[in-house]
C-alpha cells in the first residue's frame, strides 16, 4: 500500500515535470494589437526552400535562432515594404538576442528568383534572408500557419497582383511558431510584441 503511494507520487512528479516544459500561456496586454500567441507552439511542416544565394533553406536553418518571418512578394508596393522596413527598424533595437534572423518568404516563386530576392531583401537590410520554394513547398504552410494567397490578374503576364496573408511570424529556436502578429504593423507594436514573447519563452 505504502509503496503504491510512493509509486504514484513518483509518477506524478514525472508527469508534472514532463508538462512543465510548456509554461502557462502568455497573457497579451490589450495595448499590443494583433499579437496572437500559440500555446503550445505550432510545429512547422518539413519544408525545403531556397535562399537568395541559392542555398537550401529548411527547418535546420530555423533551429537555434529566433526568427521573424514574413510571407509576401517583391512586386508588392505598399504592405511588404512597410512591414520589411519595420523589421529593419526592429533589428536595430537594443535588447534583442544575438541569434535573431529576419526572413522574407516569397509566395510568388515564378517572378521572385533568388537574384530578385537578393536585391529586394538587401535593400532593406544586408542581413535579411530572402527565401522561396515551389508551390507545393509554400502550400505546406497553409494549414499550420494560415499562409494563404491568391494571384489576381493574368499570371502569364508580368503584372499580376498577389493577395496574401501578411502576418509576421515569431519562430522560436526549436523552429516552432511561437506567435504571430497581424497587420497592419507598426514599429512600436512589433517591438513590444517580440520582446514580450521572447522574454517570456526564452
Amino acid at each position, binding site marked *: 500500500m505504502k509503496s503504491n503511494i510512493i509509486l504514484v507520487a513518483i509518477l506524478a512528479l514525472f508527469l508534472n515535470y514532463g508538462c512543465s516544459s510548456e509554461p502557462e500561456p502568455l497573457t497579451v496586454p490589450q495595448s499590443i494589437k494583433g499579437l496572437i500567441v500559440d500555446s503550445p507552439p505550432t510545429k512547422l511542416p518539413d519544408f525545403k526552400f531556397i535562399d537568395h544565394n541559392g542555398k537550401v533553406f529548411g527547418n535546420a536553418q530555423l533551429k537555434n535562432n529566433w526568427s521573424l518571418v514574413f510571407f509576401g512578394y*517583391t*512586386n*508588392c*508596393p*505598399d*504592405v511588404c*515594404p*512597410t512591414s520589411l*522596413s519595420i523589421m529593419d527598424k526592429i533589428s536595430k533595437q537594443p535588447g534583442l538576442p544575438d541569434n535573431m534572423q529576419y526572413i522574407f518568404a516569397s509566395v510568388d516563386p515564378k517572378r521572385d528568383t533568388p537574384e*530578385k530576392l537578393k*536585391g*529586394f531583401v538587401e*535593400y*532593406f537590410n544586408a542581413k535579411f534572408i530572402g527565401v522561396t520554394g515551389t508551390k507545393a513547398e509554400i502550400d505546406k504552410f497553409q494549414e499550420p500557419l*494560415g499562409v*494563404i494567397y491568391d494571384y*489576381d490578374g493574368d499570371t502569364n503576364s*508580368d*503584372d499580376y*497582383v498577389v*493577395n*496574401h*496573408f*501578411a*502576418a509576421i511570424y515569431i519562430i522560436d529556436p526549436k523552429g516552432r511558431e511561437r506567435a504571430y502578429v*497581424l*497587420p*497592419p*504593423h507598426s514599429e512600436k507594436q512589433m517591438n513590444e510584441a517580440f520582446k514580450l514573447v521572447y522574454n517570456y519563452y526564452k
Partner: protein
Amino acid sequence: MRFLFIIVFCFYSSLIFADSGLQLIDPWVRQSPPNAKNLAGYGELKNTSALKIKIAAIESAFFEKIEMHVTTFENGMMKMSEVKNLALSPKESVYFEPGGRHFMLIKPKSIIKPGIIVPIQIRLSSGEVKRFDMQVRR
C-alpha cells in the same frame, strides 16, 4: 502689345483653371527596392472648396500608369484593389498612407530615389488639372 497679351492670357487662363481647391498635403513616394515594377505614393488629398470634387485620372511623366488603390486586411489577408470614381465632399480629406489607400505608381520610367521630385497631375471631372510634386523618401 506683347505685355497686354500676357495679361490677357493670364486672366483668361485663370478663368479656365479656376482653382477647385484640391490639395495634396505632404505628398511622398516610397523609394522602391531595385527593379520594382510598382511603387506607392501617399499624402492627404483635401478638398478645401465648398463643392464636390471628382477625380477623373492621375498621370505622371515618370510612370506608365497611376491608379488609386486601397489595401485592406481581412483576418490578416492583405488585398489590394483599385479605387474608382473617388469623389471628395466639400472640406473632406482622404488619407493615402502605408497599409491603406495609396497611389499605385506603375512601371517607373526612371530610377526613383531620394532627392528626386515626382510630378503628378490629377485630372478632375471638371476638366481641371492639378499638379503636385511628390518627394521620394525611404
